[in-house]
């Protein structure tokens, strides 16, 4: 079964932030960017969510790594 967009994004965030913070971050940024719960995010919403996550990721892992992570997610989500 293919992973849903929120599962794919969660898996990437979890690597850096751990399961608890990744879950909270996804919830907060999904609400801020598209006004939805993470599990309601679809492929059309994903670009907005990824853009909303960018400043947080840039702060924590640096711009270079942030760009790599977001590019990888964009590819995986076939956006």
């Amino acid at each position, binding site marked *: 079964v293919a992973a849903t967009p929120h599962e794919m994004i969660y898996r990437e965030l979890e690597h850096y932030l751990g399961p608890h913070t990744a879950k909270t971050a996804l919830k907060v940024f999904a609400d801020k960017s598209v006004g939805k719960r993470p599990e309601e995010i679809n492929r059309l919403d994903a670009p907005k969510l990824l853009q909303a996550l960018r400043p947080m990721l840039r702060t924590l892992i640096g711009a270079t*790594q942030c760009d790599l992570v977001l590019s990888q997610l964009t590819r995986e989500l076939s956006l």
Partner: protein
Amino acid sequence: MKRLALVAGPVALALVYLVAQFLVPDGARDRFFVVEVATMKILALTGCIVAASRYRLSEYVGIAWTLLGVHYGVLLANDLLFGPVVHLPGVVGHKADVLRAVCIIVANAAGGACAIMLARVWRAAGLIFPGSSAWQRAAVFLGMAVALAVVGWGMWRDLQSLVAGDPVAITAVASDLGDLVGFSMIAPLLLVAVAMRGGSLAWPWGLITASYIFWLLYDMTWSFHAQMSLREPTFLSLVELWRCLACGFAASAGLAQRWASRARTD
């Protein structure tokens, strides 16, 4: 395995130090400690450079690690250029006191700013802390109370000396303030590490917290050695053990920061 090495490395280093200081003859102890202190600071400085080089200079976490690098780098320069045992030719007396004071003030300002930045990374990243905010506040206040208990008495004494006209006391006051700020950040740093448990970023924050805890023990030993009936040579051996661990864990934290920002490999 790499993560285990981040913890085992500083512990092994401390064991090497313990054995080495035991083997050093009494007449060579002063020189041994000059070399040991410089080595530990070089190690911590290297860790900071390794971490900072992962980021652009204008990036938040990169700035924090650069500041910690400035802290260790300036303290190292102070020891090697203006120290009481090793110093540049002609740099003695009042001139050395002034240069030492400048170094200590700059180093502590940079170290304090780094601790605040790393502790506030949550806010800078726009994240919301998981868990109860009352517990978080309680932990922060407890940490500040411990910091005040350890540094407070010495700081009060140093402030009195400064007011009484002793210009050298400014060095001690700057150091006390830096310690107070750094130790007050232990709880917030630990909260960040706990919140990110299971993630790669928990490691740098956990290890830098360990470093600050060993600096706290270093200061506690200095502050309360009379009450603990600690005398030479045990006293100096113990404070230098804490320094070894503090610098070792700072170096490990820097390495962990670099590894943490790597991509997922599965």
